[in-house]
Structure formats: C-alpha cells, structure tokens
C-alpha cells in the first residue's frame, strides 16, 4: 500500500499507517523505493549483531518526523492494541457477569449452576459483537480530501479501514453466543427431541436478537442521518429555487435595463422588499388581514407602479375590518397623490395603533400647495381621502403650505 506521491521525492518521514513499530522501515522504504520487508529483515539482523539495529532504529524514530497525515495513520502495533480493546471489554464484561452471578448466589437468588456457562459465553460473545458494531458506527470520517486538491488522488482512505468491524471477531462473538445457547439447551435437556420446544425457540430468538440487534440499531441510526441529510438538501434546493426566481431574475433584468437608472432603482427596490419579506417570513406574524400588512401591500403596489420609494413605519397593529380597510384605501390614495404632486421627493407613511384609535400620516417633501386654491372638482384628495374617512366615522386633515411639503393625517377612533 505504498501509494503516497510516487512522482516527487518525499523527505524522510515515518509512515505510521504502514509501519509495524514506529513506521521507520515503511518510511525509509517508501523514500528509497524498496520493499519495507528487506529493511525490516536488515534491522532485525542488525539488532542481533550487538543491538546496533535497535539503537539505529531508535535514532531514526527520533529523527524522522511522522508523515503529515499521521492523524489517521496507525502502526500495526497501535492497530492490534486497538483491536485488543474489544477483547478487554469482552473479558471485563465476562468478569462482571461472573461477579453478578456470585453475588446472586451469595444472596440466595440462585436458579442452578446450569446457567453459569451459557450466561458467561453469551456475555463475552455479545460484548464482542456489540463492540465491533459500535466501533463501525462511530467510524472517523475519511481525511478531508476535498480540502486539499493535490493530495486527493494519492491518499488511501485510512480512516475507514481502522474502525471497520473485523469479520473474524464478529464471527467469534456470534459463535460464542450460539454456543451459549446450545450449552444452555443441552444442560436443560432440550436437545432431546421430545422435550419442550418453546424453550428452544425462546433461546434461539434471544441468541439471534443479541447477535443482530447492533446492526438493526445501526441501520436505524443510518436512516435518521439520511433523513436529516435529505431535509438539508431540500432546504438548499428551495433556497436555490427562490434565488433563481427572484434575485437572479432581477439582476438579469437590471443588466438589460442598465440605461434607465429610474427603472433599475425601481427593480432593485422591489427586489429588496421581496427579499426582506421572505427573510422575515419566519419571524413576523403571518396574518394577512391586519392593518400593517394591508398598508405594506398598498405601499408596495404604489412603489411598483410608479418606481418611487415609500418608507412605511407601523407601530402596533390590529385586525382589518371595514373601517380599517377604508383607512388603508384612503392612505393609498394619499400616497398616490404624493407621488403625483411631489415627484422625486421622499414619501413616508407612519401608522400607529393606540388602543381603539388608529392614526396614519402620509408625508412628502414636495412643493406643497395652498389648500384654499385647490379647485373644488379635484376629486383625489377631497373625495377619496377626506370623504372616505368621514363616511366611515373618521376624519382627515391636510397640513401643507407652499414650499413645506404635505402631510395627510388620517384618524380613526
């Protein structure tokens, strides 16, 4: 498995993942393009000759730094110790089981010596199987190959190999469990054909559960992870779709209309509003039938139709009814009026709900006008704003003077 970088001469580094002790021979062999076995034999012979090999090996171990990807790499020594962990856990559990049995016996809760061997065997076997299975489930992720493009192709996937369950150990564990079951049945005389079949079936089912449960668990866990991953992918796709439909579309339009700054500004403004609505969708209360949302919609409509920015500030909120709807319609008319008679000026709309009282102010910084001089046939303000408010039991006032902008005040109480 000498796969690391064949093309460029690598510096002397210990190859921990292919080594036996410290990876010295594997590292040297890689650099010298030799079979590590030759070097190992050499070192062993040198070690026999007055211990030179041992000293040489130790010096090399100290002087040669480990290869950069030493995190995942483990020498044969380390790997076998790692495997031995399974054995240690298994024997520990066996001892615990024995202790428990002794305790039970001392307490007088004893069913008979016949259960000792089956229980001990089953514990050992079960522990081996579970240990292996758990090891595989928490397998360390493979080294981040994507993050280092150059190293990606030549890097063996060591992370997986280390923790993959060893079939031998698993088979041994299974054999132990099955053996325990057989011993149990035999001791109870159940293997004789005319004895109780239920006991045999029960014991077989128990043994199978013990052996297969870890895999079922892992399967279930894998499914949960997959589901989470699927949800993430879906969310990403949704986000991408939204950006395509809105932002990218608008950006394309803006590039086409680059010659018309007014339209570009209007497009940008519209997209901004849409994006904000979308971003706030999760947090804002999503009842469409409220004063604030109705005003927002009305303002948005005017902005879109005329390409004029309108700043809306709403304090408090209340449900829509006929009168509030009339108020919104009047406010919309007032904004339209401002767009018409105060071109290019900033327009702000302020709405405040104070208990039962609703106030809306529409303000522009246009030229203003003399109220007395407005001809009586001008329906805009008089009819759609003042008249509408009065019909619904509210009132409207217009504050303006030439040169000072205009403010329309709408009150519903």
């Amino acid at each position, binding site marked *: 498995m000498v796969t690391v970088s064949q093309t460029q001469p690598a510096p002397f580094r210990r190859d921990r993942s292919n080594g036996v002790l410290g990876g010295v021979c594997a590292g040297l062999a890689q650099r010298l393009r030799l079979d590590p076995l030759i070097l190992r034999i050499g070192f062993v012979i040198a070690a026999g000759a007055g211990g030179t090999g041992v000293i040489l090996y130790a010096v090399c171990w100290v002087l040669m730094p480990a290869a950069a990807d030493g995190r995942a790499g483990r020498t044969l020594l380390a790997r076998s110790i790692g495997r031995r962990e399974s054995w240690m856990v298994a024997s520990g559990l066996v001892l615990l089981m024995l202790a428990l049995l002794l305790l039970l016996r001392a307490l007088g809760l004893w069913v008979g010596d016949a259960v000792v061997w089956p229980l001990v065997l089953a514990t050992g076997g079960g522990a081996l199987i579970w240990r292996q299975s758990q090891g595989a489930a928490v397998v360390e992720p493979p080294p981040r190959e994507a993050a280092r493009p150059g190293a990606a192709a030549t890097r063996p996937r060591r992370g997986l190999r280390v923790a993959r369950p060893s079939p031998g150990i698993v088979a041994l564990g299974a054999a132990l469990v099955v053996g325990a079951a057989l011993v149990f049945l035999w001791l109870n005389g159940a293997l004789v054909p005319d004895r109780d079949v239920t006991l045999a079936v029960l014991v077989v089912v128990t043994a199978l559960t013990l052996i297969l449960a870890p895999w079922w668990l892992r399967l279930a866990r894998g499914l949960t992870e997959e589901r989470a991953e699927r949800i993430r992918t879906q969310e990403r796709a949704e986000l991408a779709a939204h950006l395509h439909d809105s932002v990218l579309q608008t950006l394309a339009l803006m590039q086409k209309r680059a010659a018309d700054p007014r339209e570009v500004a209007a497009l940008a403004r519209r997209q901004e509003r849409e994006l*904000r609505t979308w971003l706030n969708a999760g*947090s804002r209360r999503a009842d469409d039938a409220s004063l604030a949302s109705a005003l927002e919609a009305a303002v948005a409509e005017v902005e879109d139709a005329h390409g004029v920015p309108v700043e809306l500030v709403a*304090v408090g909120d209340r449900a829509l009814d006929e009168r509030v709807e009339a108020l919104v319609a009047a406010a919309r008319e007032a904004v339209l009026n401002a767009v018409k008679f105060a071109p290019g000026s900033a327009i702000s709309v302020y709405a405040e709900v104070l208990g039962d009282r609703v106030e809306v102010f529409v303000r522009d*910084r246009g030229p203003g006008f003399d109220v007395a001089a407005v001809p009586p046939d001008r329906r805009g303000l008089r009819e759609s704003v003042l008249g509408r408010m009065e019909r619904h039991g509210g009132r409207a006032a217009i504050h303006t003077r030439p040169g000072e902008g205009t403010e329309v005040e709408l009150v519903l109480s």
Partner: protein
Amino acid sequence: MTALPRVVLVDDHGLFRAGVRAELDGLVDVVGDAGNVGDAIECIVATEPDVVLLDVQMPDGGGAEVIRAVAPRRPAVRFLALSVSDAPDDVISIIRAGARGYVTKTISGPELADAVRRVAGGDAVFSPRLAGFVLDAFAGGEGAAPAVADPELDQLTAREREVLRHIARGYLYKEIALRLGISAKTVEAHVSAVLRKLQLSNRHELSRWAVQRGWLE
C-alpha cells in the same frame, strides 16, 4: 464645528466601503477603514476617530463586538450603526451595545454626513424606522407595567413619545422643534434621553416585546 469629523468606516464589503468613502468625500474626514472585527478594533484604537460608521452584521460577532472591545479603551469614540438590515433585533441589539444611532445603507451621502456630524456632536440619530421600533417596544406600558420595573427607565414621557412620533412621521429635528414649540436643542435632549432609556432600561419590557413579536424564544 469647524473641523470635519474624523471617521472610521467598518464594513466587511470592500465595495460598500469604497462607495461610502466616495459619497462622504469632502463632507467628513475618513481617517481609516476596516473589513473585519479584529482590524476594526486595531484601527479605531490607533486613529481615535470622532465617529465610527459600523456595519451591524459581520463575521466574528459583528458591530456589537467592535463596540464592546473598543468602548472601554476609547470611551470618547462614538458609534453610528449603518446596516442593510432593518430587522428589529439587529437594530435594538446594536443600540443596546452602545451605538448612538442607526441608519440604513440606502441613506444618501449628505444625509449620512449630517448624521455623522450629529453623532460627533454628542446627539443621537434615529431613523423613522428606529423611532417606530422604539415606540413599539415601549408601547403598552399602561396596565401591563410590572411593579418591579424602574418607571424612570421603562417608560417614555409624553414629550419623548411625541418627539419620536414626529421622527417616525419623517420630520427633521428643526421641524419638530417648530411644531412642538421647543428649541432644536430640546428635541435633541429628548432623543438622547430615549436612547439612554433604550440602552439602560432593564430588559423586561424589551424582551417581552420581542417575545410577543416572535423574535426571541
């Protein structure tokens, strides 16, 4: 003020920094800029500007982090938040961290320069939207006022409320002064008082407001 206010720009978008620099050219003295929290702290401590124009949303903690790191070392430096976000929690949190005002990035160059001058002079700068948020946050005090709260800090006076409503309606300070028959200095004093309340009031009212609106858990 005779000299131009000295300003440091903090924003993680280089393009935006360049744009603001160009817009403010000749109106204020931009003495430095920074694109991340670490650089910003270093730059502000080194140059000691009058005003820092501060982006709210940046990696590594954002504008609030800059204020927290700089304020103890350079207490004379004032901060004006400048952000694309008009989400209430962003606005309120940067103000509570210590910013003297909040304006959105769509503001025009001369308006921004004016806001900088105000902040440099020690005043608070409230956009109509911020005024709206504050009114909303301090609304509903009647009847629901908690007994333990500090009434001084947790409620706005009628006058402060009136001033804020005019700001929300789009009036300038001097227009408000004219309409309410008070001096422009008094208007500014009211706004500064509101800012103080916003920063110091115990969290109860504000968090109740945020929860009600679904912005906090």
